[in-house]
């Protein structure tokens, strides 16, 4: 490292407490900033993994979420008969005609109710969604009042009864959907759910394609079929879009908070650096006399401030990395169902927060560094 930067770095150790506090302020901002990005990434990942690349979901045209969508039996059976569908083991195409209904269940602390998504699914749903695996118990028997529950319902025991839609439902199994949105759902036989909820229509139809390339052809043909009022989307794309509202909210809130906090941190760094310049006036005069150019002085003090930012980044990111242990449960603002997702740290976030911290250091150091560089040498040397 050039000696002048060694000089800057070592000077940070001289006023330990002041510099530690300044870096600490920046660390808090980095923490908030990184945590927000981690949350958003976690949400995106969870939603994207809910959908399967090979699957196509059919909804009523212009319905954005499944609870707004209706597809009647006649339309559903037309979709079922299309040649692009993958054929399952028994020679039956992989289709799940689904009905999605929100219910309110008492929460674990009994005081609050939780808004839960129930999904009536077809008998071949597990072949359709290979990321969903039964971990405890067994699959429900079609035509019965049996249900299986997602991995997030840890408090509900297998063999217990849950009451909704004026019926008692027997919990016979638990599935693991790999942390995706399905882990927050209750699944049962869609025919049984339709009876219980007194519905005549499905919410959506999900099919698996034999060849994923066939999607656009199928989509074009079915969407222009006069008998159908449906819209086809790749399942993955559909769930990604569902996170947009929440993701946008997290981003706006996060960026606003980070910006406000960073303003305070930058001001803190500016004050610290002005003090450093004032204390080292004579040293600045000497450096200039020795032949260091004004630009070198500017660089040395900017480097010092950016070292502060670097320290703040390291501390803040370390703190944020502990958030990976935490899972957030919240309402999905698009579908109004409950959703759980983790904080996910990616190399991109590491880099982004580094740039953010260095940026804070740079901004905080800028005015003091300019002042240091513009000092008249003789005045600087006369300082006590």
């Amino acid at each position: 490292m050039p000696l002048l930067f060694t000089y800057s770095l070592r000077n940070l150790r001289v006023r330990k407490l002041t510099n530690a506090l300044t870096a600490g302020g920046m660390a808090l901002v980095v923490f908030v900033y990184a945590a927000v990005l981690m949350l958003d990434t976690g949400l995106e990942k969870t939603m994207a993994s809910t959908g399967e690349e090979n699957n196509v979901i059919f909804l009523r045209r212009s319905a954005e979420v499944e609870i707004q969508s209706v597809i009647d039996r006649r339309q559903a059976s037309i979709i079922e008969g299309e040649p692009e569908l993958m054929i399952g083991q028994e020679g039956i195409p992989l289709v799940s005609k689904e009905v999605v209904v929100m219910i309110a269940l008492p929460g674990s602390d009994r005081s609050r109710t939780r808004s839960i998504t129930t999904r009536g699914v077809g008998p071949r749903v597990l072949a359709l969604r290979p990321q969903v695996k039964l971990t405890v118990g067994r699959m429900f028997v079609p035509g019965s009042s049996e249900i299986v529950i997602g991995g997030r319902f840890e408090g509900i025991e297998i063999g217990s009864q849950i009451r909704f839609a004026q019926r008692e439902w027997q919990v016979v199994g638990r599935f693991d959907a790999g942390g995706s949105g399905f882990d927050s759902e209750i699944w049962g036989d869609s025919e049984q759910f339709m009876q219980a909820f007194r519905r005549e229509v499905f919410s959506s139809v999900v099919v698996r394609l034999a060849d994923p390339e066939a999607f656009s052809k199928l989509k074009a043909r079915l969407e222009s079929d006069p008998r159908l009022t449906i819209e086809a989307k790749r399942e993955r794309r559909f769930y990604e879009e569902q996170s947009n509202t929440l993701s946008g909210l997290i981003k706006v809130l996060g960026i606003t908070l980070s910006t406000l906090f960073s303003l305070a941190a930058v001001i803190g760094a500016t004050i610290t650096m002005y003090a450093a310049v004032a204390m080292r006036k004579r040293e600045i005069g000497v450096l200039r006399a020795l032949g260091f150019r004004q630009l070198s002085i500017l660089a040395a003090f900017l480097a010092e401030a950016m070292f502060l930012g670097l320290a703040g980044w390291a501390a803040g990111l370390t703190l944020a990395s502990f958030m990976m242990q935490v899972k957030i449960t919240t309402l999905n603002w698009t579908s109004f169902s409950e959703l759980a997702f983790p904080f996910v740290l990616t190399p991109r976030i590491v880099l982004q927060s580094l740039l953010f911290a260095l940026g804070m250091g740079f901004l905080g150091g800028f005015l003091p560094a300019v002042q240091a560089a513009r000092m008249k040498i003789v005045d600087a040397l006369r300082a006590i």
Partner: protein
Amino acid sequence: MTSQRSPDAHSGDDVLIALRGVSKAYRRGKEVVPVLSDIGFDIRRGEFLALMGPSGSGKSTLLNLIAGIDNPDSGSIVVGGNDITRLPEASLADWRAANVGFIFQFYNLMPVLTALENVELPLTLTHLGRRERRDHALLALELVGLSDRIKHFPSELSGGQQQRVAIARAIVTDPTLLVADEPTGDLDRQSAEEVLTIMQRLNREMGTTIIMVTHDRRAAEHAKAIMHLEKGELAERVELRRE
């Protein structure tokens, strides 16, 4: 710098520095305080000049002008054929790095750097590589008798030792000109004597031109000539010995 002739030099000697009509005033609010008025003289290569005069007579100001860290209001200062008053700041900084060594009253070492690093610092402005920089710095410290203190920080050294590190820092680039502003002003008699002896040796053995501001008669007697400044004007010049 080689022995270029200054165009302004009027003597046949090898003139290093030629001042002509140099004036400088400081503004204190609305009041203008004249410090130097119409100073003109030559300094030959290899000179060891002591600049004396009462406090506030403008000694430091004159030294700073010659060393290129301050600008006169009028007049020219030609050093080795270059009028340094016409150089833009960045070029002037490069000129100082290559040609001038500084010794201050209060040593002015960088507290966070070791003795060796302090001496190496001005070498980072040269084209020397890492190894050469270290070797040069070690040599300069040896010259001032501090080879056993290279890892020490300034706070771990006595005043006299710090000033000797400062001298090593000033000479490590092998400058044409060494300027010293009250270099013994903060030292006890014995340390002062050591520092002055080193300066004398540099002047005699390496031919370094030295200008030293002092108000200490005994310090001044180590020089080859003494020049007196009074109220911003040159009063008299005394030659102590000629070789």
